[in-house]
């Protein structure tokens, strides 16, 4: 089928075909991304706290479940033990001055602690980073190709259309660089 559509590059039939493929894959990638990263089953690390602007200014942070707090504390304890034993840890919850101060909020884990807890999983740290980069590539291609369809349909001025298309792909490329870098270095304490 790809060959059939690939013949007509001028009519963007190949891009049209790819758009459907990336869209279909995105549905499955999105479900997996959501399930793994926003509904962590092992530590119930999703917070439904509501924080108003004034509370945020006072440094109020989301509250996590007791199970999530315990998991963070256990991880921090094992890190300290490994430090005392002289081991060189991989991705860990690092009790820097900054996170120590924040970890004290109402005695609970901070969002960053929860994030590091997820990244402490060696499978997660490698496999899911690759997964997220793939997800990012698909999402950016699908999203910005769709945006370009709209630009092409509604921007009548040739100069403005070419400019808008060039700008949108530049933004997409910038986001790809930011996203790949952020996902790659997350948890590496660079």
């Amino acid at each position: 089928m790809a060959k059939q559509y690939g013949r007509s590059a001028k009519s963007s039939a190949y891009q049209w075909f790819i758009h459907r493929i990336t869209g279909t894959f995105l549905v499955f990638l999105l479900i997996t991304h959501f399930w793994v990263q926003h509904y962590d089953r092992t530590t119930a690390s999703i917070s439904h706290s509501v924080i108003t602007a004034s509370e945020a200014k006072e440094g109020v942070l989301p509250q996590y479940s007791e199970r999530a707090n315990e998991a963070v504390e256990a991880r921090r304890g094992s890190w300290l033990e490994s430090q005392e034993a002289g081991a060189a840890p991989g991705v860990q919850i690092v009790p820097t001055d900054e996170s120590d101060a924040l970890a004290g909020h109402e005695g609970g884990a901070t969002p960053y602690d929860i994030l590091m807890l997820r990244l402490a999983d060696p499978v997660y740290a490698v496999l899911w980073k690759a997964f997220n980069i793939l997800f990012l590539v698909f999402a950016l291609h699908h999203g910005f190709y769709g945006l370009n369809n709209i630009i092409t349909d509604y921007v009548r001025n040739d100069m403005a259309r070419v400019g808008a298309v060039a700008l949108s792909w530049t933004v997409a490329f910038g986001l790809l660089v930011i996203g790949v870098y952020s996902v790659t270095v997350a948890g590496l304490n660079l």
Partner: protein
Amino acid sequence: MAVDTLARSQAAAKPKPFTRYKVRTGMFAWMLHRLTGLALVGYLVVHVWGLRAITNAEAYNTLIAKYHAPIFKVGEFLLLGAVIYHALNGLRIVLIDFMGWSPNQTKLFWTLGAVAAVLFTVGGYPSIAALVAHFGA
């Protein structure tokens, strides 16, 4: 008469600033697909831009605290709606394009609409419940 014809053809050739659509089920689905797509691109930009905070504990905590603001809870609810609609209508388009389901496209729209409504209600409940609990307490 000739002048009138010329004026008419010139008027017809001149592009209109906005295109008028006949809004039937398929067109409505298409328009909403584009609108939700635009919203999702906007969200993607914000989401990826926010990822920069991942390398700094304080910045990340501040960002996540902001994401728990009431307006973001409402946004979460709307985002879920946009994602569900765009994904299911996208699948409908794929079925029409690749499987030849075009004659059933209206039926397909309403069937997937019912599925979307269930997913939206179940998935959106935590966001709305959190808001109600916060302001009702």
